[in-house]
């Protein structure tokens, strides 16, 4: 009844309301995007223009964009080495975490452990993830010093694989638990081994989740700073540490800082875009499905 009474009026009102909602949503997206835009705009200016161009600094309108800063920064040997280091560390940490984590996740999803319950093992893995890194960084530093692994990529791979392993276990455990059992059971009846079932049935079915998990943990490893700062000083410098070094030695150079920020941020940001469907589950450690 009430709805019919003011039908004509409410449709205009509803339209106004949806326009307002759209405007608010666009404002929120702009807020999220603004720093990326600012970095891009700054990176395309000459050093002088980073100070003289006012306000939003729209390329082509307020200044003529140049790639000089990009060419300058990317041609430095140090930048290239940091890019190589970051890539190697991220890829190898991810591989180790997947190789160790996937079978463990499968075991927790499909087998029953008796002395310690499955759920307690899972939560134990998870508790590693919430550990403040500053708690382990000092003993880890001393361990690596004794092992003569300071300033090596190996040390960074060991550290990062440890951080991301719980992610793999928790996310993949849920993925395996969600897979239908019938195929695996009938393969068991046919006499297949558990290892071949994991390899030939469960892994292919879980492939999309594995890919998404890999992207998320690659991004995490790429972004890691505290351990990289502590362990890598010259040879094993990663992109985040390289970024920090630039500021200490040369003061505030907006134009270079913008390039470096984008070089650092773009790979993880783009990788994560492909894993959108798994982000909620990944970041809440499997506590919530999204």
């Amino acid at each position, binding site marked *: 009844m009430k709805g019919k009474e003011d039908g004509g009026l409410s449709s205009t009102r509803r339209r106004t309301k*949806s326009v307002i*909602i759209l405007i608010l*949503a666009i404002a*929120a997206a702009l807020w*999220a995007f*603004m*720093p*990326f835009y*600012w*970095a891009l705009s700054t990176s395309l200016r000459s050093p002088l223009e980073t100070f003289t161009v*006012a*306000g939003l600094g729209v390329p082509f309108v307020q200044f003529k964009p140049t790639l000089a800063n990009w060419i300058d920064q990317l041609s430095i040997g140090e930048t290239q080495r940091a890019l190589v280091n970051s890539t190697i560390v991220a890829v190898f940490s991810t591989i180790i975490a997947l190789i160790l984590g996937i*079978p*463990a996740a*499968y075991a927790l999803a499909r*087998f029953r452990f008796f002395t310690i319950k499955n*759920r307690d093992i*899972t*939560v134990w893995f998870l508790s590693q993830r*919430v*550990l*403040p890194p*500053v*708690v*382990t*960084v*000092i*003993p880890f530093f*001393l*361990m690596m010093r004794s092992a003569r692994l300071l300033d090596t990529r190996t040390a960074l791979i060991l*550290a990062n*694989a440890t951080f991301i392993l719980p992610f793999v276990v928790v996310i993949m455990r849920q993925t395996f638990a969600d897979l239908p*059992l019938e195929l695996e*059971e009938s393969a068991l009846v046919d006499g297949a081994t*558990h290892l071949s079932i994991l390899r030939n049935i469960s892994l292919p079915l879980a492939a999309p989740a594995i890919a998404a998990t890999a992207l998320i943990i690659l*991004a995490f490893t790429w972004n890691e*700073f*505290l351990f990289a700062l502590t362990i890598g000083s010259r040879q094993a410098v990663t992109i*985040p540490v390289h970024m920090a070094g630039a500021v200490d030695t040369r003061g*505030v150079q*907006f134009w270079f*800082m*913008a390039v*470096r*920020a*984008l070089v650092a*941020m773009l790979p*993880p*940001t783009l*990788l*994560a*875009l492909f894993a*959108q469907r798994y*982000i*909620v589950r990944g*970041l809440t450690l*499997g*506590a919530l*499905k*999204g």
Partner: protein
Amino acid sequence: MSQAEGGVRALWKSKIKFAFLIPAVVWVLIFTIFPLIYSLRMSFFNIRIGQGDVFIGLTNFARVFTNEQARSAALVTLKIVVVAVAVELVLGLALAVLFNRVMPARGLLRTILTMPLFATPIAIGYLFFTIFYEEGGLINGLIPWKVPWLSDPGLAALSISMVDIWQWTPFCFLVFLAALQGLSDELYEAAMIEASSGWQIFRYITLPLIQPTIVIVLLLRLAEALKLFDIPFSLTGGGPGTATQVYSLFTYRTGLRFFDLGFASALSYVMLVVVMIIVSFFFRHLRQIYD
């Protein structure tokens, strides 16, 4: 729910389960538990590199509670985290409600909103340094005042909160949006027939239903935000003075810049206990999910 699942779910018995599980367990023991024990031992000693360690009992822990810098580090961390997490939850929920409606380009706008999440924190810190910079920075270039974002102690802490809000509101938004989309339509239709206002529906139906999700997000954000290191390191360097020297940064400097390893270990253990108290609430909830 989980019991019914347990009935259907086959849990196999075979020795191979140990071969699957143990490598991962051993790895974590070596690289996490061993350092933790090592660090606990150090916290009872006065460590002097090259001169041997002296056992000093709980002295390092006593210092944590009496040291002026430790106290100010704890307070500023708390201040930054409380402001940031409160705003993230409210803003994230508001955005989720907003995006839970049909609108043009929703997918694209949602994707853009998630971009801050995985952006390298250290890079973000330096980038926001240029955004907050007093002369020629983005914000002061757009507003008619010269706000001392990074040189005023209070504003510097607020700036760190603002960066954290920028990066982590999308996380709250995504989780809340997923929760809202999981609610049943029937409930809303029933509420519409009762002709409640939008606010009443939100207050008396939506909010209670997603309350468990809100609690999880709150605990996760608190545990995560207390680790705060990269942003203060890059945005303010802990300054001006020690105004934004957060707890992790102070611990890091104590241990790895001044090599007061015993004190740093005690500092980190106190932090560990605080974080563990927060996440134990979270784990209580999680155990049920993982059963």
